[in-house]
């Protein structure tokens, strides 16, 4: 497993020491789960959920008791400005 690549996909900042430590530990996790290869799953369809339900809808209406005000929505923001969430710059100036 390429820990650097996986960490990038998962947006997890890792130090070089962490990369080394996780490389070893993740291989050990994969060893644990390799066991599943022994199970014969030919023609077995995968199960992703066990509710027995599908397409549970609700009416397309606004439920006022579940609406957050702008102030509430921003209440935990580390940085906000004029009622907006401040996000890190992702585009560089040309």
């Amino acid at each position, binding site marked *: *497993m390429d820990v650097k690549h996986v960490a990038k996909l998962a947006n997890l900042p890792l130090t070089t020491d962490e990369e080394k430590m996780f490389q070893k530990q993740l291989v050990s996790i994969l060893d644990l789960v390799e066991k599943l290869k022994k199970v014969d799953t030919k023609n077995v369809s995968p199960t*992703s959920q066990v509710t027995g339900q599908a397409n549970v809808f609700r009416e397309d209406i606004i439920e006022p008791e579940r609406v957050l005000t702008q102030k509430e929505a921003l209440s935990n923001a580390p940085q906000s400005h004029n009622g907006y969430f401040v996000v890190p710059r992702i585009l560089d100036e040309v």
Partner: protein
Amino acid sequence: MTLIEEVSAKTNAFITVVSPEKPKNSGPLSGKTFVLKDSYVTEGIKTTAASKVLENYIPQYSATVYKRLIDAGATLVGKMNMDAWGHGATSENTDFGVVKNPWDLTRVAGGSGGGAAVAVATGCADFAIGEDTGGSIRTPAAWCGITGLKVTYGRVSRYGCIAYASSFDTVGPTARAAKECAQVLQVIAGKDPYDATSSPHPVPNYLESINRPLNDLVIGLPKEIFGEGLDKEIKTAIDQAVEIFKKLGVSVNEVSMPLLDYGVSAYYIIAPSETSSNLARYDGIRFGNGRSRFTSETKRRIMTGTYTLSAGYYDAYYKKAQQVRTLFIREYQKALSQCNILLMPVTPFPPTRIGEFVDDPVQSYLVDVFTTTQNPVGVPALALPCGFTKSNLPIGMQIVGPMFSEDRLLNIGHQYQRATNWHLQVPKL
């Protein structure tokens, strides 16, 4: 010093001690106090999931389970310590101090819901709401000597429950006794329009069925479980429990469930996959701190899950595990056609010492060997105290039934507890 202050200082069970508010409503839980695993959002009360990522998060809304309990007259007294995000079986993977076992403070309380179990075991609260994804209610219940219920998937609303693995997570009660779990379940069970996975299956009257006699019951013992790897004292305690069940009129059958051996492997593919997706939202922009604040165990699970879902590996890992999940469902259906409920241990060994898994964290996954197939299948399981080791550590067993058989499980648990007093033992701190 109050009891809560003493327990909190000695065990780290509490993340937030909540000053009790006079209940606005009266209802079936009037006069009862409770604590919540700190993975349930409570409007205006800090909620952390035991992670520095959410150390200052004050939710703007409340979980359905919390609202229902308050409406029923109960009083919240604490938000409890746990393995961060539910990632763990010992409550050592927390940013708020390891949760210590009140029966032996050099040992762990079990996880991921250790703090909640400690609060109930020591009498800080009448009941707790935990969350079980792969044993997180049952293991701490077993290791602290109390009763804990993993409900059928969808029986209780997950709205406001910080998600770990969305197709496994269940919301459930822990208390000293099955009867108290039944009282709480009566209030919290039932369809919630805010949780699309919650079940429309009708909620029975749990307190009515709890007193039924057991003499038409057949209990199945999966033979593969009671072999070499199981601690001898746990096996003896369960053998003694079987004798009690026989005296109550129950018949006992041996069943075979060889696929149970693959529970840990399937679970540690699917759960990390789902958690890697659920934890993607914690970007430190709208709330919380950044992703560098995740603990090592959480990072391991996110990376495992990212890998098993990634291009080129999805079929070999995630899809394979979900196929094995289908086989688990068939295995339980077959076993439960030969008996009414299954009896098995909760853990393969008693509570471990603090730090036991520090050098090899993957070893801690083996704590879950008996609790990782019920969640993929969706079936309910009730953990019951059934004895103590020679060194006075609690031993728990679990009874597992078909989907929506909580009434029968609570009935069996209650009748067992009328004939025994393990669940009444209180640790001396």
